[in-house]
């Protein structure tokens, strides 16, 4: 087989030219066929940009489907667990979609662009499932991942930067709202959404306008500490925000082989997204049954003692002086901004109710030698990082 036959060149995002100019580390990984940077300068520095000024993350590889047609609303309403009738044009909804067994296929955001026109965004690709769901509906589904470039502009100075960019009226944009602007003759959509748990926006533009947008954005942000960020910094921020990541905190159910390895929305703490008032949505029967019988797993946010991140650790309960294993950590980090040792994990019911104390077995290495400690962990319900500015409208200048 020749190289031509393999044809697996990594795609480059339309921002690649600008990103590669800034790049100091040459650390890239693959995200759904695209090159995506781990970090450009240093992940710590980039992380602090998110929390103290503004970080800019290239969202282009994010899966984007355009969904329209006469049955678009009915279609999406059957696809996801929440009530999409309540999501008016100009609004965005966080949603999960499930297989027939009520197990989460993925989570993502649904943008109601204009009446009857939607965009579905997620980390993973789902055309196969979306097509299966479309049987019997008059809808068009188009993968516009490569056509639409996306940037997450996240951090306390993000509003000021976009304001300086000249986006008039942005001050009125509410959390989970979206607005369309004109950017040098190209439509620029801005949504007040993000994956960092802070004040922030996501910018969506046709790929042809991507470089000009990047340049204008970085010019506007010059005095506001704007910085390109990679996945490592974003990962740190999303754990602080308590957001889930596919393949880390849950497995897309259609990818699992063994029974019991997928999770329902209830088991991911997303019961609030499940609306049983809807007569039908995918997974409804199974979820109603789960609601009646009780779930097997529970997602927990943990505040651990000590400062050693608890990645890949077992979670225990202590009964009569003995530890018994009840779950495991799926994401963990030391949070500089919260000064907390935090983790997201999954435990068997009924353990892990808010306020419960669990124990986490943390392994760490010092000069080749491994050590182990049992860290006391408190189950919390709020996101670890949730500043007031995230929701305030109009957002304050910085």
């Amino acid at each position, binding site marked *: 087989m020749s190289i031509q036959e393999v044809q697996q060149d990594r795609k480059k995002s339309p921002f690649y030219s600008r990103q590669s100019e800034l790049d100091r580390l040459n650390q890239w990984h693959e995200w759904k066929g695209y090159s995506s940077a781990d970090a450009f300068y240093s992940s710590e520095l980039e992380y602090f940009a998110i929390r103290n000024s503004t970080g800019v993350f290239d969202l282009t590889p994010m899966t984007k489907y355009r969904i329209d047609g006469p049955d678009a609303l*009915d279609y999406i309403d*059957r*696809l996801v667990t929440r009530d999409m009738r309540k999501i008016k044009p100009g609004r965005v909804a966080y949603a999960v979609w499930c*297989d*027939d067994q009520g197990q989460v296929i993925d989570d993502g955001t649904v943008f109601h662009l204009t009446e009857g026109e939607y965009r579905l965004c997620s980390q993973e690709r789902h055309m196969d*499932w979306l097509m*299966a*769901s479309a*049987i*019997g*509906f008059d809808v068009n589904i188009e993968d516009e991942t490569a056509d639409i470039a996306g940037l997450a502009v996240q951090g306390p100075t993000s509003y000021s930067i976009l304001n300086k960019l000249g986006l008039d009226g942005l001050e009125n944009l509410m959390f989970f709202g979206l607005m369309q602007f004109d950017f040098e003759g190209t439509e620029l959509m801005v949504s007040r959404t993000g994956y960092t748990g802070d004040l922030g926006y996501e910018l969506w533009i046709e790929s042809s306008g991507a470089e000009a947008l990047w340049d204008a954005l970085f010019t506007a942000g010059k005095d506001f500490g704007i910085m390109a960020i990679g996945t490592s910094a974003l990962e740190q921020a999303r754990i602080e925000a308590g957001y889930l990541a596919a393949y880390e905190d849950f497995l897309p159910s259609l990818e699992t082989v063994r*029974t019991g390895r997928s999770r329902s929305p209830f088991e991911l703490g997303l019961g609030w997204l499940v609306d049983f008032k809807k*007569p*039908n949505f*995918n*997974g*409804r*029967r199974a979820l109603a049954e789960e609601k009646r019988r009780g779930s097997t797993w529970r997602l927990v946010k943990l505040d651990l003692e000590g400062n050693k991140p608890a990645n890949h650790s077992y979670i225990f309960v202590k009964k009569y002086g003995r530890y018994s294993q009840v779950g495991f950590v799926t994401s963990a980090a030391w949070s500089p901004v919260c000064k907390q040792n935090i983790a997201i994990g999954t435990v068997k019911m009924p353990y892990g109710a808010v306020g419960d104390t669990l124990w986490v077995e943390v392994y760490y290495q010092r000069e080749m030698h491994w050590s182990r400690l049992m860290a006391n962990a408190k189950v919390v319900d709020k996101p670890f990082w949730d500043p007031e500015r995230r929701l305030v409208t109009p957002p304050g200048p910085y």
Partner: protein
Amino acid sequence: MTERYDAIIVGAGHNGLVCSALLAKAGKRVLVLEARDQVGGAAITRSFADGYSVSACAHLLYQLQPKVVKDLGLKLEYASRNMETIGLSPDGQHVRFSGDRVTGVDDADTTSYKAFHKRMTRFADLLLPYMNQAPARLANFGSGDIVRLAKFGLDIRMLGKTEMQEFIRLIGINIYDELVEHFGNPLLKGVLSVDAVLGTHLGPRSPNTILTYLYRLCGNHGNVASPTGGMSSVTEALAHAARDNGTTIRTGMPVKRIVVENGRAAGVETESGETFSSWLVVSNADPKSTIMDLVTPRHVEAGFTRRVRNIRMRGNAAKLHLALDGLPTIEGLDKKDFGQRMVVAPDENYVEWAFNPAKYGEFSKDPVLEVTFPTFRDPSLAPTGKHVLSAIVQFAPYELKGGWTNDARDEFTKTAIAKLAEYAPDIADRVTATELLTPPDIEKEFRITGGHWHHGELTLDQFLFCRPVGGAAQYAMPLDGLYLCGAGAHPGGGVSGAAGRNAARMILSREKAA
């Protein structure tokens, strides 16, 4: 205010009638809605030419389950029972089958056939109880399912070591290999090949054609009967049984949709706009039209919808009806032999070759035929002295290249008659009227998607707990209050009544448990 029933059955096919009769017998107020002006679905007698009537789709009875007959106290009149099967040979050296006896072949084949028949009927008897109950669930099973599965395993083990190994070896393989191994006479192998693939989109070399052969033997060991008055007499008897128990049957009432309210079946609406309410809707229609057309996918789930859409059910058998002004002559047959079942399939390869073109959207140039002369024992079907020939002609693919135009239809009719003329040279002169039902015609007339009389190919992946699709094999569809009772559900097609009976029993036992 719409009328409310305890149960509404969509379609008065034989399974729908069995199901309605059993539900009514259990005290339910049952309504059966049938699109046609007569009950029976694909088991009806109707006119096809002036003065000539015929069993329009199914034309022989070999699978009617004894349990159905017993449960409903059916008393059927037969024009003939234990019909012989005659494998036709142009030179008059026919091969005749009756029970475990075969004549017209050498001694070795006679002996082999006896052993073959014994083994096959034994395996069929093993499967029989499982045809007459809902299949066990493999996931999320309850104790009853474990017992059933364990019993099935035990039954297989109880065959003894050799026979168990044979059963496991044979259940998934093709009949061709087995026939070639055991028999010498080509005609014998041809006829048995036909028995295995009749009504399917399979050739004798296709996998699991032993299974389809066993399926045919379930219940009556393959003994073929012809009811007096054609198939309608069976379904009329079922309708009487249903009415005697209090079922209301309304014909000429095509159902437009199954009404879904708050995520459950709530009744039906007919094409004339009448609605009938019931918390229990049982569909005798095939799974595809039930889900895709009557319920519509938006009321059920996407994975299920996709599985239903992908059910393989493209028919490959045509039905030929000839009005004859007299019986033809066939070399080596007595007049009384015209009361038997005749098969045109000179050898096993002939059957496979007949199947080959169908894979590529063409009909067989040398088709396989199953022929009966129903008027021989039942003169009421034709004017005095005249006769009817009713034949299944294979293979005639649902999706014919270029479509089933009138020309294509004429050509296939001519092909079939020409093939018959190789055995009955004077047949063409005797024909006064013809009717050919291709799979699209069967689809249209009998409302069977794909015109496949099993409502879904009989293959291992669409069998038992996978019939019609995995996760919905217990007659209950994944929509509260909706059940399936037709051939698309376990165990499958043929005028057997098993699916209708099993569905009724499942409905009643679930109600009891609730």
